[in-house]
């Protein structure tokens, strides 16, 4: 290389800095231990990623065990949330301890469903479970194969529907939608939670099972958005145009929907430099972009549709180091949370294990360094609380729902 004097001096400076460095080397055992930890984190994140596609909710008034926290559309006179200035630190060690949160959790190793009212033993560690008719609708994970099951009130299997991409519930809790595969094609179906006929809402062209369709959420009281991966690494987001699934301009990969605002939050691009997300009209095939950002990965609309969660895309093995709550209409940051970590330890907020408890509070699973995760409750007023419930094993507590 034809170096300038400055380049030569940079070369020299780097060598003078680095060449004398000495340290105690790692052993293969050290590396194996770290590798096992990475494998456990990958498994946890992979499980949570599937849970993210499986949005379920406990309808108001239909369950004695559900948290009944789903919001109605707020009145126009609802006062705005208090403004928080600066970054709010999430430090589980110093956070106030609470004995319950207003969202259902699954204790994976028990396995059990934990709600504010009681704990129910589950026949298996379902990815998600929601009240349906007189019993439950649940998604089982058998080594990466996801199956929809209908259970009675005693959690006995009534119907094994088959392969699924997940379940979503309408905002008022009256309808449930799910995807299923019949060995030929994927369909998205809708039914009244209280009972009645099941209707086919979206019918996709024949495709391999691996081209999985996942309902993302309701974009109105009766309309659902769904994604389908094409088997080539790309994903499209579909809404109904008459009887036909119509892809929003893309490819885009929706992550969350708001029936109040009629929008979806979606990844619109992703490469080695990072990814960009956008809030997009989910009710029209034009898919008009309301706003976009390359600073955050967007997911999890608040029940009232006013806020959306932003995390650092590809934040690392443990999740995002920060969690921002953004104004869903403008993208402005409302509250910025940051997880504090012990020196020399890594952790993060598990991006997909987040639930809105109500319009003003989030519940999230975080890895605060070390081997164990904790559940925290975050308020738009800047409050941070930690759930004091111990899990039965190292798999920890996960969200039973993703709304």
């Amino acid at each position: 290389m034809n170096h300038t004097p400055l380049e030569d001096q940079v070369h020299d400076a780097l060598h003078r800095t680095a060449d004398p460095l000495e340290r105690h080397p790692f052993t293969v055992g050290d590396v194996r231990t770290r590798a096992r930890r990475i494998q456990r984190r990958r498994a946890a994140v992979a499980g949570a990623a599937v849970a993210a596609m499986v949005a379920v909710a406990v309808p108001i008034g239909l369950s004695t065990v559900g948290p009944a926290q789903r919001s109605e559309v707020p009145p126009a006179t609802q006062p705005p949330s208090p403004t928080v200035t600066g970054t709010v630190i999430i430090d589980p060690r110093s956070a106030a301890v609470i004995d319950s949160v207003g969202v259902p959790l699954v204790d994976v190793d028990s396995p059990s469903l934990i709600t504010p009212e009681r704990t129910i033993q589950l026949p298996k560690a379902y990815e998600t479970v929601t009240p349906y008719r007189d019993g439950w609708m649940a998604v089982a994970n058998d080594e990466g194969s996801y199956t929809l099951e209908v259970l009675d009130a005693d959690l006995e299997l009534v119907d094994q529907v088959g392969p699924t991409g997940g379940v979503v519930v309408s905002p008022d809790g009256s309808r449930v939608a799910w995807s299923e595969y019949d060995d030929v094609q994927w369909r998205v179906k809708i039914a009244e939670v209280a009972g009645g006929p099941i209707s086919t809402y979206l019918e996709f062209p024949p495709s391999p099972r691996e081209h999985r369709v996942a309902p993302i959420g309701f974009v109105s009281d009766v309309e659902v958005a769904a994604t389908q991966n094409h088997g080539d690494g790309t994903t499209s987001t579909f809404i109904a145009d008459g009887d036909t699934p119509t892809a929003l301009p893309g490819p885009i990969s929706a992550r969350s929907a708001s029936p109040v605002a009629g929008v979806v939050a979606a990844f619109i691009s992703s490469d080695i430099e990072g990814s960009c997300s956008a809030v997009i009209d989910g009710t029209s095939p034009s898919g008009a972009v309301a706003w976009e950002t390359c600073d955050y990965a967007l997911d999890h609309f608040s029940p009232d549709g006013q806020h959306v969660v932003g995390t650092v895309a590809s934040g690392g093995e443990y999740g995002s180091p920060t969690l921002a709550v953004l104004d869903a209409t403008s993208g402005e940051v409302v509250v910025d949370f940051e997880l504090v970590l012990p020196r020399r330890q890594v952790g993060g907020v598990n991006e997909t294990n987040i639930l809105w408890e109500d319009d003003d509070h989030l519940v999230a699973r975080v890895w605060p360094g070390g081997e164990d995760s904790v559940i925290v409750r975050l308020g738009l007023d800047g409050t941070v609380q930690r759930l004091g419930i111990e899990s039965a094993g190292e798999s920890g507590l996960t969200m039973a729902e993703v709304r």
Partner: protein
Amino acid sequence: MTATLVDMGAHDRRADKDADFSAYMSARQAALYRTAYLLAGDHATAEDLLQNAFAKLYLSWDKVRDREALDGYVRRIMVNENNSLWRRAWKRKEHSTDTMPETGTVDTYDDGMGGALWSFVQTLPPKQRSVIVLRYYEQLSEAEIADTLGISVGTVKSQASRALAGLRARAPQSLNPHGLHPHESGDDAR
């Protein structure tokens, strides 16, 4: 008997893998640690970057066909991880101070200019810093840097150019051939 043979085979494969991996790690650990240190700027983060990179390499060891590419694989993991850590630090900027980062080791024959330049290198944005470390410490070609960072050669050139411009702007005049003393060459400053 069959099960025993299978188990023995798996045990042997694990032992072979560990022996191969150990040989590579022993040979390259010290050098790669220095790169990690230059990327990270402190010992704790450098240790973490390197151990994470080795762990991921260990998990992928059986899939790596080209043993000549191992260093590049480790470097790429470290660079990506470090950029991720940097984003985390950037988010923490409200708590930062105006003081320079730790300047690391300055050996006895350094006249101080090297330490100053190292301090300026640490103020570069992470991608520019990665390019500078890979080019002027590892002495990789632009194409090799592009491959390591997953960016185009043109981007490597532009990042390097911006980094050097930034260093010139921050560096003492004696290091700057375009500074106030046009008669003073960089060689004079050494």
